[in-house]
């Protein structure tokens, strides 16, 4: 049924449809609507689940780890500082191989105190062993959340579904909310591969000596390597039932493109419009929507971008002292490829600053002008007066 829903609500609806059994969360702007909706479902009985109120994000993840260890389907959501506070337990969740799904609403970290879009919060967690899936619009959010459960449970690794603060979390648009029956077909009840069971007492995750620790880590890595393949199969199954395709990274007019934009989140939508405008002017622009960031689908990128001359990566994040993180990852992925493209890194739209079609066109012209990138990342839309005043 089509509904007008904000991105937050799309997450909550997916959690309801996934018949999640335990939710623990601590509210933080702009994630709050997600957990508010879910708590209402729980109190009304639309979702028969236990909602655990906790005093912090650290405890939220701890509670979810406990619940997931007992073999039930779980969910939490956070953002920015909340996610950062969870960090220690994010490692634990993946190490313990728990198929937890979490929504992260991308928000800037302070100071300066800022509640708007910035991708640095989720990207700071890239080494925690969580699968990361980025979403473009509300439909993408709902569908990705359902896919996330299948994916998490297939490899026993946690999944982070990432959506932009306000541009997505608080924007209303039409969303097709599927009926329960097809969702049940796509996502059957969780069959845990291991669980805490008083009938069969067992201790998990105790001390591990050097003789076994490395194999444990390699086991996680091999599971991660299997993720793209599983994702493709699960997404195909999803498309069969619901009619909406989701690839690892959607390629838009890339075949003959001379410059391909690579970006994630709502910027993808803006970029689609910019590409159309540039094509209308006879420019050979293309777009690659970055959907899966962890594991980074290296083979897929090498395949799609082989033969492309220039890639312009738009990062709404920054790894200080290096560059935009998507650009950094893409450079690393393509370095050993045959005839890799030149990667132009652009940092734009931090802390909720707008990235308009015009911004993207400016990036295009700038990329076209240069043969080779002059620097690892170019900051777009800085207030020149302010920046120049620092030189004096």
């Amino acid at each position, binding site marked *: 049924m089509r509904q007008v829903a904000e991105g937050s609500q799309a997450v909550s609806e997916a959690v309801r449809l996934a018949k999640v059994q335990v939710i623990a969360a601590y509210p933080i702007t702009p994630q709050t609507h997600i957990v508010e909706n879910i708590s209402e479902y729980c109190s009304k009985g639309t979702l028969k689940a236990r909602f655990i109120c906790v005093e912090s994000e650290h405890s939220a993840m701890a509670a979810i780890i406990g619940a997931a260890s007992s073999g039930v389907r779980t969910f939490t959501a956070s953002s920015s500082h909340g996610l950062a506070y969870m960090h220690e337990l994010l490692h634990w969740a993946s190490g313990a191989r728990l198929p937890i799904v979490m929504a992260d609403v991308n928000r800037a970290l302070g100071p300066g105190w800022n509640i708007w879009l910035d991708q640095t919060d989720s990207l700071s967690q890239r080494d925690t062993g969580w699968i990361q899936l980025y979403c473009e619009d509300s439909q993408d959010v709902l569908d990705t959340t359902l896919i996330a459960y299948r994916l998490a*449970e297939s490899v026993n690794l946690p999944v982070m579904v990432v959506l932009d603060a306000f541009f997505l979390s608080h924007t209303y648009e039409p969303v097709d909310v599927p009926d329960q029956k097809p969702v049940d077909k796509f996502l059957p009840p969780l069959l845990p591969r*291991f669980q805490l069971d008083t009938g*069969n007492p067992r201790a998990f995750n105790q001390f591990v000596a050097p003789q076994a620790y490395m*194999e444990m880590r390699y086991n996680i890595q091999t599971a991660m390597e*299997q993720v793209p393949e599983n994702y493709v*199969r699960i997404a195909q199954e999803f498309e069969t039932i619901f009619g909406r395709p989701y690839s690892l990274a959607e390629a838009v007019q890339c075949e003959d493109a001379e410059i391909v934009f690579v970006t994630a989140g709502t910027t993808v939508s803006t970029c689609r419009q910019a590409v159309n405008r540039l094509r209308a002017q006879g420019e050979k622009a293309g777009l690659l929507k970055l959907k899966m960031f962890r594991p980074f689908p290296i083979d897929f990128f090498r395949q799609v971008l082989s033969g492309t001359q220039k890639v312009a990566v738009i990062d709404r994040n920054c790894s200080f002292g290096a560059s935009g993180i998507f650009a950094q990852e893409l450079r690393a992925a393509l370095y050993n490829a045959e005839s890799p493209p030149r990667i132009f890194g652009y940092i734009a739209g931090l802390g909720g600053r707008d990235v308009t079609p015009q911004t993207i066109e400016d990036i295009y012209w700038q990329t076209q002008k240069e043969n080779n990138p002059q620097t690892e990342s170019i900051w777009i839309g800085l207030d020149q007066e302010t920046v120049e005043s620092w030189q004096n």
Partner: protein
Amino acid sequence: MTDYKTPDNKIPLFLPHSSASTDLNKTGSWRYVRPLYDEKTSACSAACPVGEDIARIEMLVSQQLIPEALETILKENPFPAVCGRVCFQNCEDACNRSQMDDAVAIHHLERFVGDRAISSEQTPKIKALPDNGKKVAIAGSGPAGLGAAYFLTRLGYGCEVFEAQSEPGGILRWGIPTYRLPQEVLEKEINRIEKLGVTIHCRTPVTTEMLETFKTQYDAVFIGCGYGRTIDLKIKGAQKAINGLQFLYNIRAEHDVEVKTKGTAAVIGGGNTAIDVARTLVRLGGDPIIVYRRRRKDMPAFDPEVQMALNEGVKLKELLTPIRIEDAGSASEDHPAPYVITLQKMKVSATEIKGRARVVPNGDKTEKLQVDHIFTAIGAEPTESWHHVPTAEHPSLTLSHCKLIDADIPIAYGGDLTNRVKSVADAIASGKQAAMALDTYFKSGWDAVNVAVTGCQVGPGPVVSMAMYLGEERKDRNPHIVSYSEINTHYFKSAPRTIVPVLPPNDRNQSFIPVESMLSMEAALEESQRCFNCGICNACDYCRLYCPDMSVIVENSGRGINLDYCKGCGLCVAECPRNAMALKEEDG
């Protein structure tokens, strides 16, 4: 581990897990402090003259264990239905709950338990030692005498009580009006004492000659004859006044009920007898005025009783002392009242006597009060001169509530004869203390008495516990009194004190119907649940819930610590809502 394969998962999980029991890891070896169940003393129980184990009693009521609650009261007090009505409730003044909202209605709950025992004709189990062949004669069947008989019988002594009046009970029967204590309630509780094997000889006043023969027929004597004689006014015209205590006796004995009650009456005095006389007059259609030489706040009468008297229409004139009573002379239709009292006005002096305000005549200012009757209730004294405790002729031992002398055989004095506070509960306490003292005397000799009795004190004393004397579990209780700050109040919700329906004041001048009614079962449960159970383990199991090592174990009905695994984190002690636990450093 049961793992399975689907198209989605091809690689087996490699996870650390073990089915070996963690029993091997005796984490108790990490401990340097250990938790223990350390039951402490509740403030109410230490304030109770008979030392009732109130925190436990309310716990038992809240668990609907009413027979067990009764038996717990009867360990320390044979008169729950009586005391639930007439006691002045020191316990409620001490109640920690009053710092949160309102004190627990302890006396209503005591009465509830006592009345249920009467109405259900319950035969409680009362612990009694076998007959030891020794006999004790008891003079007086008031609360002190019957208390002594009850406790001595339980300690194995054969007791015979000698009572001057036609019925047993002393002040309980003759001095307390029925609107406070119905006769039937008193008789049922006296019957319970008789059933234990106590013989009561009525119309048999003890004389000095009898006392001499007692010395050959009995092993010990207890004298609890009370203060039977009202102190007379020593002023001109005093013979025109009626003895207040005698008046109350006559009402209970149904003598002269119709006379001397209509019209205005001056009741001279400020004690409980003055209040009882005034409230009785109200019920007989009289119009009493209490005349007291100090102020209301100085009155020795229990304040709730004073308040009820005022509610019922009793008037109070303060800082006045009678100096002369005369006939009005010109008694006529207009001025029917036959007596005029001249009252000296008093004023409060700057100095105090024993904490009470001292009053002195306010110059020569006087006023006159014309009334139909005058009642005196200015205090009482022993009926016979030999009731006074001898001071010098024999070796003696003075305890908080009784005095023991060694006169051929041991003689104990108790009740009003020895008590600083003249109350029913203190009288019962004196009987109990005397029973312990005499028993210790026979078993271990004179010198052991003081140590044995003070060894059974509830908290810092002076009240004593028979359960402790008999070596019951209560003996192990820590004397520390739990304060409000030691209660984990976040475990308790504010809840109003149960309001017991009372007879409207306007209806009280019609009859001697009891003013307060009994709690319903439902109300009693609710009220008992308000009790913090200070210092007592009520098996709430917060310790067990919070123990991270699952080291709190259920032992019989109580709780224990499995020291093999307890790491001594102290969570259980910190979480105990009622301070029934403690942490102790390990030795070495």
